[in-house]
């Protein structure tokens, strides 16, 4: 007896520390007297309580249950039957032998993956693996979710501005960052700065172009067609899963300013190359971005300056017009705070001048390089060693030129989609070009030098005129043709002329603010950002990192509730773009494709989709106009709300139907793997089809017994913590009402029917909570 007692004590000593904090109701012999409660781990006795749990799970009751233990059958029975949910370690809805085994193993100190060894995964189990079970036990065998604190909500707000959507993990990751002492203000602002620095340092994991080449090889091997959907797939893969979220988000914003669309160019490799241009240049200098965009073959195809022939009396004006109007300076002179100054920025003569500047460029033809016969004279008549003329000016990356006289073949060179367009001698206009006329009073050093070429300074008789190219003077080697070097220099001067125009800072600054933070920034906010664009403090103009810091660290973005007047605060924020709402849902619950392919192909339909898709704008004017004002509360406030232009009375229903269907999809029988979303061309079923994105709802299943906890969680990760307590309570009340899906508690001896009900109810509670959440105004609006 003594030895047994000693042994017990020994076990108690051994086991108490691991379970002392657990507060799991394992002490099933507890009398409730003198601190002897079911959760008192100090009184837990493995040999006694563990045995009782096992016996109960095996169906023993009454004297059979307690035989040889000295315990009271009624007490033990009540202690167990009263805590079945907490004893259900794997979350399959039952306290059974598996759970009893898991409890005794845990009590024995097994906390590794071996905890679940030999215990088959159970369908509908909320906690399918050892990690989840261990977390459950160490969490006290109850699942709670504390109402989000201010710091969590701030983190969620910021990640809504700067990424494709927050999740609990990214919020916690943000809060774990050490504040950046180099900036002033709150810890939250300091963490923003740290996060930005970290993001700026992240390399790109993979280029879109290389992703598409890999896919194309697979498709070619199967002799399958390769469509523009592949660019969409690559976009979504990076947007949803890539760590460099800031770069992805900024590149997406830029893709809506400097628009290239499938509606005009459909080669997936060209589209991928353009996505790479934007992503690669997001954190560089705006001048470099502008030149890369101008020389992108996809842009050249889209806005017609690819193969724009400078010998034409009237070169194509399309790109010239839009690069000025939409990508850089806009139609009217701007004050530095973005307000209109009144005068027109340029006239038709300037459009025609830029049209000339953008002549003579086409795909970078790999078959004619410096040193080739004929290259120096005229690339258009470049000859290979066998005397054959290649149609270089007309060369297309996807097509193989005819074999030459010697039978030498020239395979397609797809990489040309991923290279800047090249200048072709003899195709660039040698005429003088009227560029932008403006007075730049105090240009930064880079612009002083650049502007000396294009002479844009209004003072002193300078007139923005890019001089005619001298094709015959000394040092000119190309005869009567404009050389490659001359064409490139001409284009660089034109880019400089645009880049240094005083409108660019407020124009681009306001665009980025509107895509990232708020549709109605105050003039002061625009001015602060534009000033940084003009000079980052080190004499550098167009420093995109500095501009992004200015945008995200501004008081208006960090703490709008206090930085703005109540009237302006009502105008703060924006309607989240439909694509960002979709990505928010998927990222909040770690949407993952088993095959790592993200085939969100057909989402852009107005009637059955969300009216938006990557690089699928209907025109160069993007999905909506940046100054669109819908009639109603927005117009009454004198504000703009661009995204409402695609929020028609049809689209608002279609878009909600899309999100509602997504979160409530029943494609999977696995409770924790949900919302299969794929290419919609067939079943998105994880047992049949792996190319679909499944979300992990285990956190919500853990919380499903508490509507308040579920909505706290959803509010934090999906609604930016903007749901008011009253609205939150109303949603919880609706979910818990008898007409909806109140919590279903299993009876002590559940029937098979009870189990089915219990499983269905859990699922419906989670889905209904999500359905309600995505139908709130708070989900649609970023604040």
């Amino acid at each position, binding site marked *: 007896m003594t030895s047994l007692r000693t042994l017990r004590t020994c076990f108690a000593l051994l086991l108490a520390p691991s379970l002392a904090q657990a507060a799991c109701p394992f002490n099933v012999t507890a009398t409730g007297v003198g601190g002897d409660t079911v959760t008192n781990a100090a009184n837990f006795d493995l040999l006694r309580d563990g045995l009782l749990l096992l016996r109960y799970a095996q169906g023993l009751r009454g004297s059979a249950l307690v035989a040889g233990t000295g315990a009271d059958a009624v007490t033990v029975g009540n202690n167990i039957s009263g805590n079945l949910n907490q004893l259900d370690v794997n979350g399959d809805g039952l306290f059974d032998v598996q759970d009893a085994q898991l409890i005794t193993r845990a009590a024995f100190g097994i906390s590794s993956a071996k905890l679940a060894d030999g215990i088959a995964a159970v369908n509908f189990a909320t906690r399918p693996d050892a990690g989840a079970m261990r977390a459950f036990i160490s969490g006290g065998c109850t699942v709670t979710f504390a109402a989000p604190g201010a710091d969590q909500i701030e983190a969620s707000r910021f990640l809504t501005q700067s990424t494709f959507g927050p999740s609990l993990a990214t919020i916690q990751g943000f809060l774990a960052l050490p504040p950046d002492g180099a900036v002033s203000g709150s810890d939250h602002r300091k963490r923003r700065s740290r996060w930005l620095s970290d993001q700026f340092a992240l390399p790109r994991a993979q280029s879109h172009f290389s992703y598409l080449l890999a896919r194309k090889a697979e498709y070619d091997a199967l002799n399958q067609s390769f469509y523009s959907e592949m660019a969409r797939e690559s976009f979504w893969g990076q947007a949803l899963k890539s760590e460099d979220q800031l770069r992805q988000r900024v590149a997406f914003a830029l893709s809506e300013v400097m628009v290239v669309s499938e509606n005009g160019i459909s080669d997936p490799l060209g589209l991928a190359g353009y996505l790479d241009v934007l992503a690669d240049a997001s954190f560089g200098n705006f001048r470099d971005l502008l030149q890369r965009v101008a020389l992108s073959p996809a842009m050249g195809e889209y806005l*017609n300056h690819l193969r*724009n022939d400078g010998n*034409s*009396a*009237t070169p*194509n*004006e*399309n790109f010239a*017009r839009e690069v000025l*109007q939409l990508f850089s300076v806009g*139609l*009217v002179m701007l004050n530095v705070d973005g307000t209109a100054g009144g005068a027109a920025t340029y006239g038709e003569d300037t459009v025609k001048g830029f049209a000339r500047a953008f002549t003579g460029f086409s795909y970078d033809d790999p078959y004619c390089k410096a040193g080739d016969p004929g290259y120096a004279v005229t690339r258009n008549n470049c000859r290979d060693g066998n005397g054959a003329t290649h149609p270089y000016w007309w060369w297309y990356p996807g097509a193989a030129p005819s074999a030459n006289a010697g039978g030498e073949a020239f395979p397609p060179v797809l990489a040309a989609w991923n290279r800047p367009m090249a200048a072709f001698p003899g195709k660039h206009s040698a005429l003088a070009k009227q560029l932008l006329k403006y007075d730049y009073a105090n240009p930064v050093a880079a612009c002083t030098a650049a502007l000396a070429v294009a002479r844009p300074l209004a003072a002193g008789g300078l007139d923005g005129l890019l001089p005619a190219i001298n094709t015959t003077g000394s040092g000119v080697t190309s005869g009567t043709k404009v050389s490659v070097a001359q064409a490139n220099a001409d284009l660089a001067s034109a880019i400089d002329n645009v880049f240094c125009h005083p409108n660019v800072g407020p124009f681009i600054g306001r665009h980025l603010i509107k895509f990232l933070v708020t549709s109605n920034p105050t003039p002061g906010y625009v001015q602060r950002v534009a000033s940084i664009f003009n000079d980052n403090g080190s004499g550098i103009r167009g420093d995109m990192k500095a501009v992004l810091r200015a945008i995200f660290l501004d008081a208006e973005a960090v703490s709008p509730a206090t930085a703005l007047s109540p009237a302006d605060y*009502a105008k*703060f924020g924006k*309607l989240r773009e439909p694509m960002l709402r979709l990505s928010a849902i998927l990222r909040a619950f770690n949407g993952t494709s088993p095959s790592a392919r993200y085939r969100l192909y057909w989402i852009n*339909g*107005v*009637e*059955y989709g969300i009216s938006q898709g990557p690089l699928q704008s209907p*025109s160069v*004017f993007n999905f909506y106009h940046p100054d669109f004002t819908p*009639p*109603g*509360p*927005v*117009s*009454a406030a004198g504000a703009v*709300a661009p995204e*409402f*232009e695609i929020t*028609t*009375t*049809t*689209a*608002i*229903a*279609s878009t*909600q*139907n899309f999100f*509602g*269907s997504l979160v*409530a999809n029943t494609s999977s029988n696995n409770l924790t793997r949900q919302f299969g979303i794929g290419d*919609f*061309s*067939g*079943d*998105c079923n994880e047992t049949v089809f792996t190319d679909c994105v499944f979300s992990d709802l285990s956190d919500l299943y853990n919380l499903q017994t508490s509507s308040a906890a579920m909505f706290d969680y959803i509010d934090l990760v999906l609604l930016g913590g903007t749901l*008011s307590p009253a609205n939150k309570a*109303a*949603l919880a009340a609706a*979910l818990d009402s008898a*007409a*909806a899906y109140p919590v279903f508690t299993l009876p002590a001896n559940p029937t098979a029917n009870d189990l089915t009900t219990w499983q269905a109810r859990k699922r419906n509670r989670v*889905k*209904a909570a999500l*359905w*309600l959440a995505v139908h709130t*105004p708070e989900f649609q*609006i970023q*604040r």
Partner: protein
Amino acid sequence: MKYPTRHDRRQFLKQATALALAGGLPTLEALTRVAHAAGDPGPTEVGADYKAIVCLFLFGGQDNANVLIPYRDGDGSGITEYTRYRQARANGSDPQNQSTSSGDLSYTNAQLAATALNLSTGSDPGVGNVFTTHTYGRQFALHPSYSELRALYNGGKLAVVANVGPLIAPVNRLQWYGPSASRPPTPVNLYSHDDQQRAWMSGTADVANPTTGIGGRIAANPSIAAMNTGARISTQISIDGINPFMLSDPSAASTAVAYQVGSGNIGRLQTASTTPPATPTVCNTGTSFMNANPGSPYCIAGGPVRVNSGFSWNTALNGAFRSRINGVAEGVSIYHDQWRQTMNQSIQTEIDISAAFLNSPPSEDIVAPFQNAVASGLSLSGGSLGAQLRMVAAIIRASNQLGASAASPVKRQIFFVGIGGFDTHGSEFWNNNPQNNRQISLAVNAFWSALGNVRIRDAAGTGYLPGSAQDRVTLVTMSEFGRTLNSNGNGSDHGWGSYSLVLGGAVQGGKIYGMNHNVSAATAGSSVWMSPDLNCGAVPRVGMPPDRYNGSLTAPGARCNGLNHALDRGELLATTSGDAVLATIANWFGVPLGTPTQVDAMFPTLRAAHPGGWNVGFMT
């Protein structure tokens, strides 16, 4: 077949409303199916006092030089206008040997033969205030893709208005190239796509960001609003999304606030309605949720209602959602309130349209003309112009179910449809534009045929008036600007004045209105391709700016060589404002425009653009 009386049909409507409240997207196909299943789609008719305007916008800037094309040897002079057209568009290449790859933008006589227009006879430049330019021997063909439109023109139903664009004051070539200080004011941001789209649609080309559109002002006009008082649907319905044309003042009558429908469905929010359906139905759910059409009341009856969301109809969840979707401002965020208002409008109007469709579904006589045109190449895919106009025809048919009561059906409707792809700078000039124009001709013609099947109920409700809805609907095309006559080597660039086509039974068609410039010989040292129309007429007429009239131009047939509106690339300064075209139609529609005050309220810059009078005269 016995048609139910109006009273009976109202009863039917009430019963049907409950059915229409289920979730899902009622597709046009499903609605048509119902028409057949029910066996009785009801009469295909509109009310006695019904009128509609359909605006068809060609996005991108229509290549006007290939809309109305000089054909053959019209004027009998040595070098024909046709030849000059070929020369002007051939970009230096031999116009006799058309080569599209060299940037030749012209059509040949052979290509134009099938769309040649009737040569009108007579020598009078017009009647009264009307200025036509089709006389004096010039002969034209429509774009070769417009064979159906050609028949409508020759049949007297389609009119052409020449050189139309946003205009706030007359301006000519000399003024344009002259000192800016003496240049008349011109529309804000000419040549910019979105600005000129807004200028066209708003009728306020003098401001950059207009807050109301022409359609919005017409719908809000007290005379028009009174005709639709109590209507359960907006006067304005767009099948092509939100657009500046239909923007209305926030304080306008609720019937003025535009509603948008899809080309194939009317935007039903799943589980959004207030009450569960009276009769449970089960639907063909398809294989994936994107294909599913569950919850439609038009599916086969016999099972529990399902919605796509995966759980059964649930009033508690639905109620929690709907409790915040109402017209009451919360005042927390303007975006919250805007979204709530839009959602509320979507739900309410969808319920009404669904109910009207259920009672007056798009029956065979509406759908068949479109379906029949598919063999000729008409696209009816989602969002296509054909599908858009099919939806317009369906809503016109349902209009008498959407009024305040059976006795007061909707009397006025404004529709907006659109087609893109007209920004033909490059290869799309030949690759896509002919097909886009083909869609216009086929879709408009099918729409016209469908309207011909819609009868007009007499005021007493006991019989029918003569004619068809063709007499009550006016369709007008518009595009933000025209384009250059000459080529950039691949296509044409932005211009200003373009053509509007106006179709309707109330249109005096078969004529060309406004000033249609002549393609002239290139002047030495210049690339002026266009000259004014050769014949000006003697009296001020719409389309002829007052600066054209001087002492030398007195006799009909006199040549107006004085002032030109063509620029160096053959693009045109507009001479007739888009406002004048729309005001002419608005006048027919019933908008009072008898006093300057009334005109200024509706078209603020119209009188300045047309000091001599603005009615273009193409409406009866």
